[in-house]
């Protein structure tokens, strides 16, 4: 909500090394999509499996995490955020502005590549692409909110974020049924499932929860994370402990 904050944040985010990383995974995803198309002859099911497991399961969380560290984590860490905080600006304005930049970046570097992945790997009239696009966008909102807040709350945001994204969502989610219901990815997929109607099953877009539950949980988690982030930012102390 504040243009200058967004400008500074955006410029900080797209520093050289981080920008290189931001591009690698999406490119890999597109490459895999191409290979999948070639190997499976544009089978929609195969395309969906790729999108679900790699794009939404790995690409999206990792990109969200990478963007979140670039949007606020690094600044808090080296103390340069003091220049934004020592201003007559409400902390929530600062956080919202950063969240918008983060969300835009995740949309460009994760959600659109997800859609392209599906398109390249195999689709039927673009329906799968749209379904994944919506699901990915919703998951992106939740992930970004969670990871940005995590970056404000703790200095070890990255590892905790990775533990959540990779361990919780991917691995444990595969073994323990209960966990699958408490997963941002599942909530987001519930919408995609509903969108595809009867094609959802054959196209492997399934979710543990219904769409209503999914949307409610996504909203709750996002709002909760943002609220927590603002509160913590209002009482942020700057110390230089490593």
């Amino acid at each position: 909500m504040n243009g200058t904050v967004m400008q500074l944040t955006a410029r900080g985010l797209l520093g050289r090394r981080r920008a290189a990383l931001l591009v690698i995974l999406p490119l890999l995803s597109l490459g895999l999509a191409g290979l999948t198309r070639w190997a499976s002859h544009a089978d929609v099911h195969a395309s969906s499996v790729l999108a679900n497991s790699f794009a939404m399961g790995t690409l999206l969380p990792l990109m969200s995490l990478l963007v979140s560290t670039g949007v606020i984590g690094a600044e808090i860490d080296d103390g340069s955020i003091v220049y934004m905080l020592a201003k007559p600006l409400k902390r929530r304005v600062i956080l919202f502005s950063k969240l918008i930049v983060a969300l835009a970046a995740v949309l460009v570097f994760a959600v659109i590549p997800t859609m392209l992945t599906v398109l390249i790997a195999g689709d039927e009239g673009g329906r799968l692409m749209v379904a994944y696009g919506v699901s990915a966008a919703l998951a992106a909102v939740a992930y970004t909110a969670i990871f940005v807040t995590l970056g404000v709350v703790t200095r070890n945001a990255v590892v905790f974020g990775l533990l959540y994204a990779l361990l919780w969502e991917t691995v444990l989610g595969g073994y323990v049924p209960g966990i699958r219901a408490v997963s941002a990815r599942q909530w987001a997929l519930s919408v995609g499932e509903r969108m595809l109607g009867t094609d959802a099953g054959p196209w492997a877009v399934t979710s543990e929860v219904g769409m209503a539950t999914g949307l409610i949980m996504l909203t709750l988690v996002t709002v909760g994370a943002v609220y927590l982030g603002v509160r913590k930012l209002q009482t942020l102390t700057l110390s230089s402990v490593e």
Partner: protein
Amino acid sequence: MGPGVTGLLGPNGAGKSTLISMMGGFLPPSSGTVTLDGVPVWRNTEAYRSIGLVPETEAMYDMVTGWEFVLANAKLHGLSKPDDAARAAIEQVDMADAQDRDISGYSKGMKQRIKMATALVHDPTVLLLDEPFNGMDPRQRLHLMELLQSLAAQGRTVLFSSHILEEVEEIAGTIEVVVAGRHAASGDFRHIRKLMTERPHQYTIRSSDDRALAAAIIADGSADSVDVSSGALAVQASDFGRFVHALPRLARDREVRLLEVTPADESLESVFAYLVAR
């Protein structure tokens, strides 16, 4: 603290940065309050309109130029004419030549000056500077000292921290001494010295007849000890008031001409050493 230049002095690790963080609203005091014109600074973002903070951390937004950074700060303050303010601030710190280079390429002194510019851009009434002279060469340091003094003369409250005594001695009217996390002393350092009555004052006296004067001082009893060994009189007096009054009288009575009377330990350095050694 009021208008003028106040020096925050203390050894490393004494808590100077902590204190400035508290004053800057980045650390809540564990007891008591820190207020600006009666309003607490903690969780009060409006206070930043009147406070200019120059933090110690070197890290800044490296990927923008000096001009862009100061301009951004001006805009973040919500100034109505950010361009003019930014230009003025950069002029004040003498960074106009380098303003279009990326901050990542600045030397340490240049970064310090840009930091000053961001703190001045919104014309604050209070300036908090954490180790501002770090990394500055002598010319830049002089420039900054003049700047701080002129700002204080305009009625602003300027606080800067340092552990280098010479810097503080030169421009600070009042000093606050912090030792090991506690407030050790406050005020003009000459007054602080006078308060240290348990430490005898030391004077160096040169006169036309040192030995006669020494004998007179000892006989008078107003000094603790007199040392004639090093070519001048070194006098230690606990009751310096009495000594200071007695000395001219003694000299006149013995017809000794006083050539030089210098307090040997009324420097900030000795005051500081006494405070820290306690």
